């Protein structure tokens, strides 16, 4: 895999949240999903920074929704994972599982 397509931990979490959320993935539900599953507060600015990086790598695409009054006339920016993004997630999973497999220290902790 080319170096520029490699994923950081937070980028991987964002991609997994996008896959979970499907069509309704914009900033608020993405950050809530990560917060609920990781148990730590997530800054929306960091989520957008990660999404911008992922979009630069063509791993996600975004489109603007309609502006709404409840959001001060600002539109939602919806994100979805591309085929390349799905491949990158699968590759990250494969590498991590491979690294985890057969580590006695971790197997002991699991028991």
């Amino acid at each position, binding site marked *: 895999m080319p170096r520029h397509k490699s994923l950081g931990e937070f980028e991987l979490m964002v991609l997994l949240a996008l896959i979970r959320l499907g069509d309704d993935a*914009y*900033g*608020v539900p993405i*950050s809530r999903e990560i917060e609920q599953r990781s148990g730590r507060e997530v*800054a*929306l*600015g*960091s989520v*957008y*920074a990660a999404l*911008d990086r992922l979009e*630069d790598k063509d791993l996600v695409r*975004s*489109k*603007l929704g309609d502006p*709404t009054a*409840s*959001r*001060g006339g*600002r*539109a*939602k*920016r919806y994100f979805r994972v591309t085929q390349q993004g799905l491949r990158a997630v699968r590759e990250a999973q494969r590498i991590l599982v491979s690294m985890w497999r057969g580590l006695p220290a971790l197997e002991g902790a699991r028991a």
Partner: protein
Amino acid sequence: MNPRKPPLLATWLLERLGIANGNAPLAGDLLEEFQSGRSGAWYWRQTFVAIATGMCRNVWVARRYFGAFSIGYVVQACIAFAFWSNSWPSPLHGIAFATVAVATALLLLGFLSRPLWRPRDRKDPGSDLPNLENFLEFAIFAVAASDPI
């Protein structure tokens, strides 16, 4: 019932520093979360992070400017050194001319290439509108470019 209003100063800062280049949906998300019960302190924290990450991003985007000006200064230094070491007549005129010429060329190059840069949100027609951040960016580079050797 009127919706809660987020801290005015934080919103003002966010709109001018943190969400440049058309990333207005971030401000909408923060407002949505604030109105669903988040605290003012949370809004301020999120604003600072958004500004910091936005600025880091802009430094990366503006790397061509930094590169161009570094090259420009090296060129100016070489020209100045040539005048000084050869004791050519009227060196100040030459240095001033070279400074102005190089600075103008770099500024023009930077602004002409700007539309080629990928904006954060290509579907937002307002994404390339000038704002305070763009102005500050221009002012800093203009001052740097006009600094004589």
